[in-house]
């Protein structure tokens, strides 16, 4: 009889994890403290109340690690007292992931026109404009945002503010 798991060097995977928590003081500190205290990665973390009556919030975390680490992360999250449910969206079938960024670009002349033209291509909205600047709002996949911001870097990028990833499973089922 031999062990079923070979203990060879495993690959690093990226996972999007969605957790439903009681919206109470300190709950975010617990989640973040867990990641920092145990040395897990956080690529992105978003949180907001999603059910006012039940005072529930949803936290969406994008993290990476070996399969064993990912399993640990989920188990550790699951045992926090205010955590109701932990869903590994990456494991549970197809899901959508979106992120929003506000991108400020300053400039005049040709660069300004080009920025506006590219914003159109990327379906970014103008949410603020002055004679010398724009603030664009862009929503999409992380890489899409990266590309847009990369292009703006050439055209007078002043600053970026990103929400981090929110995600949801596809189809009629809950999360």
């Amino acid at each position, binding site marked *: *009889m*031999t*062990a079923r798991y070979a203990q060879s060097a495993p690959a690093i995977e990226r996972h999007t994890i969605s957790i439903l928590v*009681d919206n109470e003081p300190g709950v975010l500190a617990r989640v973040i*403290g867990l990641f920092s205290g145990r040395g897990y990665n956080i690529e992105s973390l978003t949180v907001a109340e999603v059910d006012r009556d039940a005072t529930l919030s949803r936290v969406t975390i994008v993290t990476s690690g070996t399969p064993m680490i990912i*399993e*640990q992360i989920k188990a550790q999250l*699951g*045992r926090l*007292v205010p955590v109701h449910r932990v869903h590994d969206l990456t494991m549970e079938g197809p899901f959508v992931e979106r992120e929003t960024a506000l991108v400020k670009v300053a400039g005049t002349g040709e660069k300004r026109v080009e920025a506006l033209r590219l914003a159109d291509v990327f379906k970014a909205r103008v949410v603020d404009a002055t004679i010398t600047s724009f603030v664009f709002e862009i929503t999409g996949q992380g890489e899409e945002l990266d590309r847009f911001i990369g292009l703006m870097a050439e055209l007078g990028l002043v600053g970026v503010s990103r929400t981090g990833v929110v995600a949801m499973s596809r189809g009629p089922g809950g999360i």
Partner: protein
Amino acid sequence: MSAATNETSLTGADIVLKALRDQGVEVIFGYPGGAVLPIYDALFQQNDIRHILVRHEQAALHAAEGYARSTGKVGVVLVTSGPGATNAVTGLTDALMDSIPIVCLSGQVATHLIGNDAFQECDTTGITRPCTKHNYLVKDVNNLARTLHEAFYVAKNGRPGPVVIDIPKDVQFAEGTYRSPADSMPKSYRPQVKPDLNRVEEAIDLLAKAKRPIFYVGGGVINAGPVASQLLTQFVRMTGYPCTTTLMGLGAYPASDRQWLGMLGMHGTYEANLAMHGCDVMVCIGARFDDRVTGKVSEFSPNSVKIHVDIDPSSINKNVRVDVPIVGDAAHVLEDMIRIWKARGKQPDKAALAEWWEQIEFWRARDCLRYDKTPKIIKPQYALERLRAAISGRDDVYITTEVGQHQMWAAQFLPFDKPNHWMTSGGLGTMGYGLPAAIGAQVAHPDALCIDVAGEASILMNIQEMATALQYRLPVKVFILNNQYMGMVRQWQELLHGGRYSESYSEALPDFVKLADAFGGVGLRATEVSQVDDVIAEMIKVKRPVIVDMCVDQKENCFPMIPGGRAHNEMLLGPDEKVENATPEDGMVLV
């Protein structure tokens, strides 16, 4: 106070006491201060709950741990804000690491002062978040009762652990409504206690087919209550398989039984470690594959199929990949295992098992705990063997320890046939744990014999608790194996740092006999073999706190030892073996 209904209005302090009473609390360990005076006032005006005044808040936590571990109940602590809370941190961390159920109430400055750097303010929930299972700051007196009941639920359900409730002083004075425990279940926390039966079936199939099986049992079986130990013993005997326990699991399986191989791990027995290394099916119940147990993980039990029973999913696949994970309470799972083993008419493979035992007996014959007997100098092992002889046959003995060589020798040489009679700081390894833990055990079992096996360095970390023992007439025994060294540190320096004994000599020690006397206890000393039995007999006879200064060989080392980062089959058996030539015994392992 009259029989209050759910609607009665009470002060926060009275709500605290009523909730404690409704939780069946009989004793709390604490230390007063400005931010908890209303609760102390309420305590003063009632007689149901006893308060034990410790001499340092760390000791309140360890005493509550000793109380909890020796009774299976939740240990309760009360400390003030600021320094009271920060002094509690070591004890909270200790309880977290060793899965001990504790509820610790701390005072806090008034709500309107929080965040202002008020006198004796500290961010208690912030500081204790990583060293508790859960914590609360109660800002509204109407949430106080519910929070207290929830805290008890969280502390004792699932994997037990410490819970802190921080209560601002104005909330202790404010009036609010009481709620009963039944109305106060947490919204989200529901640990799984019943296992997935398909997994249990799978485990039983593997176990029945095993040729070289082993039970690897830990503190989780003690957490699951005495019935779990009974079921474990029944199941292990039914199968005829060998069983080893961790430091935290001592007593979960009777040490006097032939099927017990002793403790495993860094200072575990030769037979236990080699059986772990060579087994083909391992069933781990309530143990967490700690690094002191596995040694080098990549070489840990390389050819076995591993079954892991644990109530906490995060313990599973944390350090070691297992093949059959079973989430559930040890008692429930063992009950199912026994039932299914019987129902399926399982029988062990008798021929293979006989061969396996033959191999194990061969390892056991190395007599790995043997030590050199000396005519005059007291070997620490000898002192413990004599203590073992003096307490044998008694079932009212509770042993606690400090941390170091003496702790390992106590684990190796003292007999633990029942759960809840052995208390040690395993996960955190906190010097200073033993005396307050013995006090806690003695409070719970006033007529029992509670002995702290101590080192001369460790005991000084909470020696002030002698005053607590005296105040409450708790006849605890401090049994110091005085080697005038931080022996465990010295041993590592000898083996791994070229014998450079940097700061590990116990300089300027007090005279422990006079120290006992100064506290109002009894001091006894033995300096040679001929005095050992008399001193032990006297220690047991005296019904007062005793400090025994057992002056032992200064240079003795604790063996067997698996040097850090080595595998189970790279064990050092005695002083003649060096770390470099720790011999792999692969050949012997392959049965």
